[in-house]
């Protein structure tokens, strides 16, 4: 009986100690991580808790647990119970096995320590029986501490694993170890993180260069070969008026939007093979994809950057259409289709962003969805429909996933096809009517195709450079019911809404106003004078001046608000 009460007492003492440590870690706050070697000299203050930066990393948390439970036997640097570590103990306790505490005659409430002492956790030859972090973490969870065995939580076991890996300079700070990803983290081998994505980058570069070479050769083959053309040529009209093919008129923005969409489809499909759509697995599976899967980081970065560039290219395309008055009849309806696509793509960006399910998405998850609630009448129902319940959780993630990979993607694919069909049905992009008695100069599709491909190659190079040098954001897995941090930000494409929200009523400023702006844009061809037919095909026609002013004002306001939000 006595021993039971005593272990209860020890458990409470450890809890109080850990709680105190936690508070201590909070107060030490932003103090930098000390050099572990500086702790090697025995001194009175040596066996102290390791100060951590806030927020603590997984290994930092592990260091706290380690200090409380493991350090006595395994040493402050994982050196094991060696002579040097023993020398820091009081003389009568230096040989644990013979001191009467951990030997053959150990009392009931203690445990027997192997006579050789506790093994080293760090240094050459340490931990020989573990080949991966998974085995190490599982062992810690099941068999450590020696007494009472199995008293560590699973989280603590992974934190300790992270800490022990960092003892051995094998830490993977960017990875939050868990049962899912740790099998790929080696303990007794060199860590091979695919930071070496160079071959993949070289392959894509080779592809872009040879595509450029191939196209430049194809366009020199002469009229006969160009007339026949390949499958890709035949997606285009045989010839188009020269004015429609000028880059200085189209800015290539519509075509590039299609290109970015295709990159998104391919990279997104590849990501689906590793993404786990559950609150417990999502952020970790993205870490696995980013840090462990060969070329996973490259593919994720390409997906991220195409999504960002797509928003920009669509905005440029919209500005071009407004500033050239291109939405004049017969292209009124296609303008609406384009606007719908813009809204759908913003929703795709938003849902894709939430799928990260890490600490970075809190604004989107909380503010973004709560905005829906402010809509009078239907708000509550809409909120429940979007997040699949009364508060964010597993149903929210699976709904965002379904919308992202299926619902919205299907709608975008269908409307994009319709949008392109309408371009051809409406006689290509806007151009002046043929002058009487004068033959319109037309260019063959081979020329159009080579222009397109060159634009795609340039965009591909930009995409590749961005993906290589600026990685997509990633954060620690989302803690459910955690607080909204002070620096929580909207994703950049919704910064303008975050900014307007500061001016007043959330429904008015966050929902009604942005919606009104989109509707106003959609109404431009219907309520305001349009460009005259003979003015089409050039910039700033006089016919739709008012439309240009309104369109540019709206885009400029969104741009400025985004800038303001970004600088805040």
């Amino acid at each position, binding site marked *: 009986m006595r021993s039971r009460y005593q272990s209860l007492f020890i458990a409470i003492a450890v809890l109080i100690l850990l709680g105190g440590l936690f508070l201590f870690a909070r107060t030490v706050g932003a103090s930098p991580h000390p050099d572990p070697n500086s702790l090697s000299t025995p001194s009175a203050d040596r066996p102290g808790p390791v100060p951590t930066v806030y927020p603590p990393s997984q290994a930092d948390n592990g260091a706290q647990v380690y200090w409380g439970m493991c350090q006595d036997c395994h040493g402050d640097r994982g050196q094991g119970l060696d002579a040097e570590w023993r020398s820091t103990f009081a003389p009568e306790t230096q040989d644990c096995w013979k001191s009467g505490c951990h030997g053959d005659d150990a009392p009931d409430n203690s445990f027997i320590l192997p006579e050789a002492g506790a093994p080293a956790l760090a240094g050459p030859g340490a931990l020989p029986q573990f080949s991966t972090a*998974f085995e190490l973490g599982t062992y810690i969870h099941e068999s450590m501490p020696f007494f009472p065995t199995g008293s560590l939580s699973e989280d603590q076991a992974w934190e300790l694993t992270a800490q022990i890996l960092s003892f051995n300079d094998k830490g993977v700070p960017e990875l939050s170890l868990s049962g899912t990803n740790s*099998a790929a983290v080696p303990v007794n081998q060199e860590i091979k993180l695919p930071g070496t994505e160079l071959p993949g980058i070289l392959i894509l570069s080779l592809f872009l260069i040879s595509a450029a070479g*191939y196209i430049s050769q194809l366009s020199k083959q002469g009229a006969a070969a160009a007339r026949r053309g390949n499958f890709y040529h035949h997606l285009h009209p045989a010839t188009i008026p020269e004015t429609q093919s000028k880059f200085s008129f189209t800015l290539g923005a519509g075509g590039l939007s299609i290109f970015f969409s295709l990159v998104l489809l391919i990279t997104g499909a590849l990501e689906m093979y590793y993404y786990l759509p559950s609150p417990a697995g999502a952020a970790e599976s993205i870490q696995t994809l980013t840090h*462990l*899967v*060969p070329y996973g980081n490259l593919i994720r970065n390409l997906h991220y950057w195409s999504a960002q560039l797509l928003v920009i290219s669509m905005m440029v395309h919209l500005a071009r259409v407004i500033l050239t008055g291109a939405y004049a009849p017969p292209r009124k309806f296609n303008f609406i289709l384009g606007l719908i696509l813009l809204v759908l793509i913003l929703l795709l960006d938003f849902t894709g962003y939430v799928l990260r399910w890490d600490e970075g998405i809190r604004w989107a998850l909380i503010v973004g969805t709560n905005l829906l609630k402010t809509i009078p009448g239907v708000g509550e129902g809409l909120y429940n429909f979007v997040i699949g319940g009364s508060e964010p959780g597993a149903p929210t993630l699976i709904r965002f996933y379904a919308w992202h990979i299926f619902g919205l993607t299907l709608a975008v694919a269908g409307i994009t096809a319709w949008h392109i069909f309408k371009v051809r049905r409406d006689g290509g992009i806007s151009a002046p009517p043929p002058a009487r008695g004068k033959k319109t100069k037309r260019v063959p599709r081979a020329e159009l195709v080579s222009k397109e491909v060159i634009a795609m190659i340039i965009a591909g190079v930009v995409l590749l450079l961005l993906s290589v040098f600026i990685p997509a954001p990633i954060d620690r897995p989302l803690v459910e019911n955690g607080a909204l941090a002070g620096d929580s930000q909207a994703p950049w494409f919704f910064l303008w809404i975050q900014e307007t929200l500061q001016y007043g009523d959330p429904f008015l400023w966050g929902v009604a106003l942005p919606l009104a702006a989109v509707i106003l844009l959609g109404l431009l061809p219907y309520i305001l004078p349009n460009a005259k037919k003979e003015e089409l095909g050039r910039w700033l026609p006089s016919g739709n001046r008012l439309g240009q002013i309104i369109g540019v004002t709206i885009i400029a306001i969104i741009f400025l608000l985004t800038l303001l939000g970004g600088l805040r």
Partner: protein
Amino acid sequence: MTEELTFPRRAFLRLSAKISLGLAGILGMGGLVRYFSHIPAGNSPSSYDLGPAADFPASGELIRLDIPAIIYKTKDGYLAYSLVCTHLGCTVEKDGENFNCPCHGSRFDHNGSVLKGPATKRLPALKVVLTDQGKLILETGGKVK
């Protein structure tokens, strides 16, 4: 004659472009294979705790379906056999002294030897270790499933 020997510059360039495009495609496929080569799932445990030897069932026989394995206590020590059919991986069922596979009708005797096909390999024997603390540990080498 001279015509056959010429290889126009343009044709050469076009061929080079095609070859390097094809090469990029093949290498890209290789990259894709690498991308799919990662195995994210954790390993299955390589050992299972069977509890204190003192608590071993008096019948001398313990079936653990989570492993799945059967452990016998004999006068010489402990014996353990995997219960995964060596044919296509179903879990075999105990039927008297023998084991029946419910999927395709393979039969094994109590020592795991094949009595009737389609399985051709015996049920693998597993190692049981008695620790100093009197605990039984089943070592599977992580390969039962």
